[in-house]
């Protein structure tokens, strides 16, 4: 088993039994609805400018 396989195995374990239960499925859906929008929002220009200014130093 490679390190990558171990990581995948651990991720499956993490999201395995608990997440397959009715409550786990409900919780996962709810968390995605609460957090997915945040992840998908555009990055503020001010923050991008900050990073680009540092890159061009």
């Amino acid at each position: 088993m490679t390190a990558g396989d171990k990581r995948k195995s651990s991720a499956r374990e993490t999201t395995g039994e608990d997440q397959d239960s009715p409550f786990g499925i409900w919780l996962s859906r709810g968390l995605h609805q609460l957090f997915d929008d945040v992840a998908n929002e555009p990055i503020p220009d001010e923050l991008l400018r900050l990073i680009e200014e540092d890159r061009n130093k």
Partner: protein
Amino acid sequence: MTFHDQVIAILPKLRVQALSLTRNRAAAEDLVQDAVCNALAAQNSFIPGTNFSAWMHRILRNRFISDLRKRRETTDIDDVPASSFASPATHEDSLALKDLSMALSRLPADQREALVMVVIQGMSYEALAEATDCAVGTAKSRVFRARRQLEAWMSGDLPANDKLRIKVKALRDAMDARRRAGQSSDDLMLS
């Protein structure tokens, strides 16, 4: 990928981590910006080829803890209203989401962060441990305790808001009925 490209690429994940810690969108945006400033200032300490994601998540987490210590001199993080943790009004139509948001806000910040990083970002326990600077067993325990605590609150196993318990029980019963009938229950989360 350059250092700066990696910073830009990880911003969405940092936002999720920041919101899980602060429970407040405005505070989360500020925390991400502060963490990016810290990372840019410390970029020479990052060793190329090592785990950039874990390095960046640790910087954000350390900044959160540092800010929290400063703020505690004048206020308490638990004073932040739970409603500010939730998504915008468009999603607030869902009572179930409001209830979940409220229950999440009652969890300790480290458990909330661990649960969100595993469920939303699909992190393994090992990656979570590295990103939050703790042992793998501790990371696993935080996720486990967060799930169990939420389930207990929402199923009424422990004293909690009765209205919340009743609403969640009704939702879970409806989901179970749909599943038994082989029907989708996706729309229930939005009702």
